[in-house]
C-alpha cells in the first residue's frame, strides 16, 4: 500500500511537471514584507522586510532587480535579487500603487493614487523625468511592447489614458466601465485588456483605433454578481488564454483570448487580485488578499493544484527564472 502511494506520488510529480527553479516574489501589504516562494517545491523559502505597505512589484528586464511600490513610504524601492538588499529608493511621488517599466529598462511609469498624476522616473539616475496629469485615482499602468504607449487607468474617472512616451504627454482617453484597476497588453501590442472592478467587466481595446472591441462579462453559479470584481489580468504569450482575477468572487476566469469566450472559473482563495506566470507559462500564481495565500494554477490542465500560505494581505506577485 505504501509502495503504491510512493509510485502514485512519483507519477503525479512527473505528470504535473512543475516549473523548475522559478522563484516567486509576493508583496504582503499588511506585513511590510516580501515572501519568496520556490516554485518547484511550492514552499516559502524567505520573508524579506521592505518599506511600508508594499503593493505593485516589477522586475528589470534581466530579472536582477525587483522594483517595489512601498505605498505608505511614498517611494519605489529597488532590491538587488542577488543580495536581497534594497540598493536604491526612487522618487515616486506620493502613494505609488502600480507601475510599469518601459522596454528601454530605464523609464518607470508610476501611478500616484492621491495626486491624479503619473510620475515618470529614470531608474538609472533616480530623476523624475515628467509628471503627467491624468484622471482621479490613477491605478493601473502598462507600457506597450514597442514602448510607444504608456497606459494609465483612473479609478474614479473610469478612463484609460494614453500617454505618448516620446513626449510624455497625455494624448487620448478611452472611457471604460466603472473603476478600472488594471491594464495589460497582448504580446504583439495590438490589444489592451482593461479590467473594471465595480463594472464587473473586462474591456478589450484595439490599440490602433483606441476603441473597445469587446466587453467581457462574468457570471459564476452561486456567487452574487456584486462580488464579481475583476482586477488582475494576465495573457499567455501564445495568445491562447486570458486569466482574469475576480476579487471577492474567489475565482479566476479563464478566457479564450481569441474568441473572448469564458471557458471556466477556477476556485482560489479569498479576494484574488494579481497574478503572474512562471517563465515557461506552465504555472500561474495568484495572490489571495484576505486568505493570505497564493494559489498555484496548472495552465495545461486549468486546475488549481495548491495554495501556499504567505504573509498578511498578499498583493503583487512576480516570478524570475
Amino acid at each position, binding site marked *: 500500500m505504501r509502495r503504491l502511494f510512493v509510485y502514485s506520488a512519483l507519477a503525479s510529480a512527473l505528470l504535473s511537471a512543475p516549473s523548475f527553479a522559478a522563484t516567486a516574489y509576493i508583496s504582503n501589504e499588511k506585513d511590510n514584507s516580501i515572501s519568496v516562494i520556490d516554485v518547484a517545491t511550492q514552499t516559502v523559502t524567505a520573508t524579506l522586510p521592505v518599506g511600508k505597505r508594499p503593493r505593485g512589484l516589477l522586475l528589470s528586464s534581466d530579472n536582477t532587480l525587483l522594483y517595489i511600490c512601498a505605498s505608505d513610504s511614498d517611494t519605489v524601492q529597488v532590491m538587488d535579487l542577488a543580495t536581497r538588499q534594497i540598493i536604491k529608493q526612487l522618487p515616486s511621488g506620493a502613494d505609488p500603487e502600480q507601475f510599469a517599466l518601459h522596454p528601454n529598462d530605464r523609464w518607470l511609469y508610476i501611478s500616484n493614487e492621491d495626486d491624479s498624476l503619473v510620475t515618470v522616473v529614470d531608474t538609472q539616475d533616480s530623476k523624475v523625468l515628467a509628471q503627467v496629469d491624468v484622471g482621479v485615482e490613477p491605478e493601473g499602468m502598462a507600457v506597450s511592447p514597442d514602448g510607444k504607449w504608456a497606459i494609465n487607468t483612473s479609478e474614479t474617472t473610469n478612463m484609460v489614458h494614453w500617454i505618448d512616451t516620446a513626449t510624455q504627454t497625455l494624448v487620448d482617453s478611452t472611457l471604460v466601465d466603472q473603476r478600472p484597476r488594471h491594464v495589460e497588453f497582448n504580446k504583439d501590442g495590438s490589444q489592451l485588456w482593461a479590467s473594471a472592478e465595480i463594472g464587473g467587466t473586462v474591456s478589450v481595446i484595439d490599440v490602433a483605433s483606441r476603441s473597445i472591441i469587446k466587453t467581457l462579462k462574468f457570471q459564476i*453559479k452561486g456567487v452574487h454578481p456584486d462580488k464579481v470584481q475583476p482586477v488582475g489580468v494576465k495573457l499567455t504569450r501564445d495568445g491562447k488564454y486570458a486569466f482574469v482575477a475576480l476579487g471577492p468572487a*474567489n475565482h479566476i476566469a479563464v478566457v479564450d483570448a481569441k474568441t473572448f469566450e469564458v471557458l471556466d472559473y477556477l476556485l482560489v482563495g479569498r479576494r484574488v487580485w494579481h497574478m503572474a506566470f512562471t517563465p515557461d507559462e506552465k504555472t500561474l500564481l495568484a495572490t489571495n488578499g484576505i486568505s493570505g495565500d497564493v494559489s498555484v494554477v496548472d495552465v495545461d490542465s486549468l486546475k488549481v493544484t495548491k495554495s501556499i500560505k504567505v504573509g498578511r494581505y498578499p498583493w503583487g506577485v512576480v516570478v524570475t527564472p
Partner: protein
Amino acid sequence: MNAYWQCLCGIVIREWLRFVLQRTRFLSALVRPLLWLLVFAAGFRAALGIAIIAPYDTYITYETYIVPGLACMILLFNGMQGSLSMVYDREMGSMRVLLTSPLPRAFLLASKLLATALISLLQVYAFLAIAWVYGVQPPAWGLLAALPALLLVAVLLSAMGLLLSNGIRQLENFAGVMNFVIFPLFFLSSALYPLWKMRESSQWLYWLCALNPFSHAVELVRFALYERFNGLAMGVCLVLTVIFSVLAVISFNPQHAAVRRPS
C-alpha cells in the same frame, strides 16, 4: 484449499447474481448519495470555497468535500443492508443451507463479508464515476489508491452490520437500525462537515464526531482519494474490523430463527 476457493466463489457469485437481479437495489444505492451530491450540496453550495484542510492542497467546493463521505455512505447502507439480508437468509433458510457446509463457520461468514464488500465497491465506483462527470475530480491515481481503503471500510461496515444482525430478531427492526445506527453514525461524522466546524458549535458534539469510527472510515477514504495516507484512521479501521469480525463470528447463532419458528 480448493474447497475453500470454491466456497468463496460460490458466495461471491450468489451475491453478484443477487446484485444483478435486483437492479432496483443498485439504483437505490446510487440514488441516495446522488441526491446528497446533486440536491443537498447544491442547496448548501459554498461557491466561494471552504477553508483548506488536509488532505486538500487548495480551496474546494462543498461538492468536492462530501464525495468521500457519500462513498462511505454507500458502504454504510450496504453493510447494514447486508445485515438485513442475513436476517432474511436465516429466516428463509438459505443461510442454513450455507451453514451445512463442512467448512468452518468463520470462513463462511468472512466470505459473506467479503462478497458484500466487493459488490459495494462496484456501487462506490459507479458513484465516483458520476461525481467525476459532475465535476468532482480527484487525481486519477487517488481513485486507485482509494481501492484498498474502500475495501477495508466496506469489510469494517459489513462486519459491524453482521454483528448487529446477530442481535436483531425480526426483519422489521431494520427501521430501528436506520434510526439508531445509520443516522447517528453518518451525521455524527466528518462526512458532511469538517470537524473544526462542529467544534465551533459544540465541543462535546465535536468529541462524539471525533470518536465515531465512521469519521475515521471517511477520513481514510478521503486521504487515499487525494493520494495521502492517514495512519490514525487506518489503525482505527483495521483494529475495529478485526474486533467486529471476531465478535460477529462468536455471536453468530444459526439456531436463532429456528427457535422462533411457529410450531
